[in-house]
């Protein structure tokens, strides 16, 4: 049984590395990179659900009977788009944050906020 599960375990490991980067790193760009890795690994998980042994890409041709399932592919196409949309928005925020604070380190940003007064947005 476990022989057929190796793919899932590998994917889970990748997902967790991504999640770890998101939470543990204080740099905002690095967080977004981690988010990317986390998302791509989840995409791999979905695609692995659709794969059939000896299947081929779900483009119908004469003489081919076994196809992998097209639905996960469609879902992940959508999810990739969502991912890049999030990345673009996050990066735009990063640029603005850097212009406003001069730093991208989360701890430093909070320090600078505290220094400028809790209620006194500049």
């Amino acid at each position, binding site marked *: 049984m476990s022989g057929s599960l190796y793919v899932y375990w590998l994917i889970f490991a990748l997902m967790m590395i991504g999640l770890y980067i998101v939470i543990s790193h204080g740099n905002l760009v690095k967080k977004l990179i981690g988010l990317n890795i986390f998302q791509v690994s989840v995409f791999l998980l979905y695609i692995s659900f659709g794969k059939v042994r000896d299947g081929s890409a779900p483009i119908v041709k004469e003489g081919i009977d076994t196809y992998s399932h097209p639905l996960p592919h469609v879902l992940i196409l959508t999810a990739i788009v969502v991912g890049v949309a999030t990345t673009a928005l*996050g990066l735009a925020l990063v640029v603005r944050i850097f212009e*406003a*604070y001069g730093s991208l380190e989360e701890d430093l940003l909070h320090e600078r906020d505290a220094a400028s007064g809790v209620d006194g947005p500049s």
Partner: protein
Amino acid sequence: MTAELPALQVVIPLLCAPLCLLFRSRTAAWLMFLLAALASLGCAVLMAGQVAGGDMLRYEMGGWEPPVGIEYVIAGFNVPLLLLVSTIAVVVAVYGRRSLESEISSSRIPLLYACLCLNLTGLLGIVSTGDVFNAFVFLEIASLSSYALIAMGKGRRALLAAFQYLVIGTVGAVFILIGVGLTYAVTGSLNMADLAARLPDAYGNRALTAGAVFVFVGFAVKMAVFPLHGWLPDAYAEAPSAVSTFLAATGTKVAIYAFMRFAFTVFGAALVFERLPLDRIGLSLASLAMLVGAAAACFQTDLKYLLAWSSVAHVGYIVAGYSLATVDGVQASYLHLINHAVIKGSLFAAAGILMLRLGSVRLEALSGLGRTMPWTFGAIAVAGLGLVGVPLTAGFVSKWALATALIDEGQGLVLAAMLVSSLLAVVYTGRIIEIGWFREPSGSTAAAGTTPVSMGVATWALVLASLYFGVDPRLPASLADAAASALLGPGGG
């Protein structure tokens, strides 16, 4: 035409968003948003009439029968939310015109209205859809637009708040994606009704259990349930006033609805409450949220932060209600959801008026408000009493229903937490009233222009609605009743 309503109510706001971009004029964009809000309200009212008898509207997108295609399902469980979201959108459209103009540079306003339309589209889509993956897509529409809207706040902290929300929110969304994926692997389906039919065979499957956990954790992030509430205070407090009003009254509420929809009509109470101890976890987190949120609200020095923390507490009340998994509990929870949306909306709206006239919503700047701005202060005071749950306000009705439901189930500790939290609400509301009524006006308070009529009217409309729901709670109560019976009844989903 009436058969097309489920699609139209989402498509019209969607269509308005690109039009805002094309016209690039402030007035035209505002009209578009108003049109979007009014149209969705109209559709919601018509659909409420259609499902009043306990019927269910199903709409097959593209003419493909589910589970092959995507369907929209409108029934008792989501009509109240459609009404709520679109009503708040109309109020915010009226309110926001002057408020946004005072807080945002004019070149950005058309884009901002486009984002508001998109946010409305996303929220309505999550509420109406009957497909789990489609719900994820619309959740992302709502989330992305709200990140952008929050970042438009005045200070630089708004940017940071938006970024933090983006990271936490995306992790939550990916969790939902993982959960949906695991469920899909076990059942092969994405349609909620189809899932509900197939899942009982798979009960006991560990992948399914884990999938449910991931979905619930993901939605808990979007709902800002303690301890995943970290993003909420900053996001709500730093956003532009009109945006805070809209998001505070709708954003978390829609996530809560989605949670209930997944829990009761997709995974089913048998999985969620028997195999997973979600009731106990929900009740304990809810109690903690009530205490922590209310206690933190007492220590805030800024009105918007105070209100945002109080939202954390009130999410706790709502979670406590449906975690009981009884009809009374869900009904109370739904009722509180509606009432709290109206009350919190009016409070954030009032805070927006203060922001416009005083340039600040720090509590010390409010001294003497009762004399300089009696109407706005009155709105804050009346709505604040609603937060506490004083009789004759909407807050009292739903808290009473919640307390009864808790007593029926013998949840004494949660009830105690609720009482303590309400006492703390007395403290923080009392502070505002004390500062506003008993202190002498300071220099900055005295120097203020006049409140735009549109903003005052919008704020008071919400306040009066909350009062009306307190005196005559038939409308929200009947909606909540229908919702609870549709959620828990047979064949839901």
